[in-house]
């Protein structure tokens, strides 16, 4: 019995080692190939900064000890060794993500510095002895520059707000043509930075981003440029509008003004977020492409009715004088009209929040 367990354990350890080695053995592409950790593996400041990042971004999947994903067990000494041998692979994986394995890319959420901090921390999880690293090589693109962020104090969901960031270099001169990243610190399942967008600085060094807030709350807005980072807060009120819009296909030009027939209440969600009332809406107006489908359906049901009309005429022919002879075709025609109307209504009506016809 014991030997069996031992065998199983040995095998699984081997398997882990092989699979993590296989993953690490993949060569990273050019921007990442051969990059080195700018920090020392045992730099206490870096480790504590990395720990914060790790807890915020990585811990929910990888676990507090790093053993959450068995194929990438950070708490194993072998992983740390691999990491030390090939830090560029891990940096690559962290930056670009491993989408197919469920790992999102972090290059837009975490600055290069933060990514190295967290890698340094991950290295420490395995408890491997450290070798002193090279001195930091990365230089920020703007030496001693300044980044100021200006955010309106309040907004509401659905209404666009503008974030502006001003970038100046060490001499106080505005920097032109640089990309500034804007992020929001949001609570959405986990607390983390969500990218709002990117903007390029103009002649005055000002980058402006128009953003439509979708969730009420008081998120922190963060602007990034290289190592520079500033934060500000915005209060977003709930306007109560439904502005969840996803569409299939391309947006076709609407040939006419929208037609809307229905109660006011159809704009609002029901109690407890239930679907609102049904209403009729033709976004493309009277020339909506939806009519094509409606016409086909009407054609089908009219054909049914024409067919049943033939049956009705069979029953009313002279000499067919049985009692109730035309009962069946009459009822069937009525049922067919009812069904046809229902089907057409199903196509052209729906709750407002569910309309996403382009």
């Amino acid at each position, binding site marked *: 019995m014991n030997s069996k367990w031992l065998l199983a354990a040995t095998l699984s350890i081997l398997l882990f080692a092989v699979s993590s080695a296989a993953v690490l053995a993949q060569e990273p592409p050019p921007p990442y190939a051969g990059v080195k950790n700018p920090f020392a593996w045992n730099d206490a400041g870096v480790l504590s900064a990395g720990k914060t990042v790790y807890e915020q971004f990585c811990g929910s999947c990888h676990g507090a000890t790093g053993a959450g*994903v068995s194929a990438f067990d950070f708490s194993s000494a072998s992983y740390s060794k691999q990491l030390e041998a090939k830090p560029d692979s891990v940096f690559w994986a962290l930056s670009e993500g491993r989408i*197919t*394995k*469920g790992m999102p890319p972090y290059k837009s959420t975490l600055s290069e510095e933060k990514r190295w901090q967290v890698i340094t921390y991950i290295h420490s999880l395995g408890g491997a002895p450290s070798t002193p690293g090279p001195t930091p090589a990365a230089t920020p693109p703007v030496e001693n520059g300044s980044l100021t962020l200006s955010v309106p104090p309040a907004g509401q969901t659905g209404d666009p707000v503008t974030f502006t960031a001003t970038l100046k270099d060490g001499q106080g001169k505005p920097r032109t043509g640089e990309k500034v990243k804007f992020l929001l610190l949001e609570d959405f399942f986990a607390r983390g930075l969500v990218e709002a967008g990117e903007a390029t600085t103009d002649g005055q060094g000002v980058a402006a981003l128009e953003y439509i807030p979708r969730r009420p709350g008081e998120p922190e807005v963060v602007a990034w440029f290289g190592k520079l980072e500033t934060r500000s807060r915005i209060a977003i009120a709930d306007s109560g509008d439904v502005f969840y819009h996803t569409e*299939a296909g391309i947006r076709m030009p609407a040939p006419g003004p929208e037609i809307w027939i229905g109660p006011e209440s159809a704009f609002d969600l029901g109690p407890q977020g239930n*679907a609102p009332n*049904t209403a009729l809406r033709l976004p493309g107006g009277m020339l909506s492409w*939806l009519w094509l*489908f409606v016409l086909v*359906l009407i054609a*089908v*049901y009219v*054909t*049914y009715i*024409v*067919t*049943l009309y*033939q*049956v*009705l*005429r*069979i*029953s*009313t*022919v002279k*000499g*067919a*004088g*049985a*009692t*109730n*002879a*035309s*009962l*069946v*075709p009459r009822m*069937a025609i009525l049922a*067919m009209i009812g*069904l046809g109307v*229902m*089907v057409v209504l*199903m*196509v*052209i009506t*729906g*709750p407002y929040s*569910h*309309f*996403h*016809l382009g």
Partner: protein
Amino acid sequence: MRSRAIESFQDRLERVSLAPLIHTQKTYYLFVFLLLATVAWGLYAYAIQLRYGLVTTGLGDQVMYGVYIVNFVFFIGISYAGALVSAILRLTNAGWRSPITRISEIIAVGGLTDGALQPIIDLGHPERAWHIIAYGRFQSPLLWDIIAITTYLVGSLLYLYLPLIPDLALARDRLGQSASGFKRKIFTVFAVGWQDTPDQRKRLNRAIGIMAIMIIPLAVSVHTVVAFIFSMTLRPGWNSTIYGVYFVIGAVFSGTAVLLIVIAIFRKVYHFEEYIKEKHFRNLGYMLLALLLLYLYLTFTEYLTGGYKMEEGEEQLLTLVMLGKNAPWFWFFVIAGMIVPAFLLIFSKLKTIPMVLIAAVLVVLGMWVKRYIIIVPTLEVPLMPFEFGSYSPTWVEISIGLATLAGFSVMVTLAAKFMPLVSVWELKEEAEKETHHKEEAEGQR
């Protein structure tokens, strides 16, 4: 002499085709009782599912389609027998169709009713099926499905009913007191005063002509839309452009096989040997073979296009299907559902009826399994690394699945008691045409 021979053919036709409506054997009751008992057991299982929810099934967050949706696709597919076999043969005026059109239309209605119930059974809250009518939005393939299936079901009922009118009138006139009062009433009301006048005939033929054309695009649209439920997603295996065609061909294929089985049973039980001849099995067998090759080709195309590009999910799917835990199902489909029937059909001249029938049974089983292969393994492919789904049906699902099959059989079996199973008036027309030809030929001589 000759005219007396026709008389006796027609008399015998009426006697044989109307006999099931008035004479019922003990074994029939036993058979119906067994089927109803199975349905009752299924209803009990469904009550359990309603009481405790879908947790009594093998369905979960990852694999949310199981036996129910497999049966949905399967039974909707079977309904094709009616639509395409009967409508295409009618439009092309294939004389040999007359004895089998009625049965195929009954299968169509039975299969559709049964299939359309499945998605409702699949709901934990069946009363919320109403929501798709009240709150459905046009972008949802499920809404398309409801519309297409409803429309097609209505069309199939109409298409079953129209050619039935003269035969119901025949039952009304010939059976008299030997049928129960309830049945007499049904025959009278549904025969809508048919007296076989030229005007009535003209109108009926016009109505049937319209419906025969109408039912084909409807049938095609229904199974295309059923395929859309899957192919409108980005799932590996489902993310395919051939799915519409693939499902349509698969449906005609399995529908023809079911039709073969059902006509063989009715032929044996109700002594239709004079009307449903070896020719029918041979012709339908050739149709089945052609459809089999087409389906095999589409299956090959499906796996080739996926496997050649080999996206990550696709690779997992193919491994799961061809080598993994679904491999027995897949290889059963390939060998028992495709290759063996193909050989049986190719060499069916040796012993037509048994060989075609065995092939048909294998095809039906294989096609059920193929639907399982289409639906379940795809859902077992994880979208996220921690979402491994796995599925095996529970007793509740198996019971309801068997009850579904029993329900279909009950519908087809009971139909035999309310309508002549062969189209008597069309057979008479054919017979008249034949003698007319013979007379002409002899006159010329």
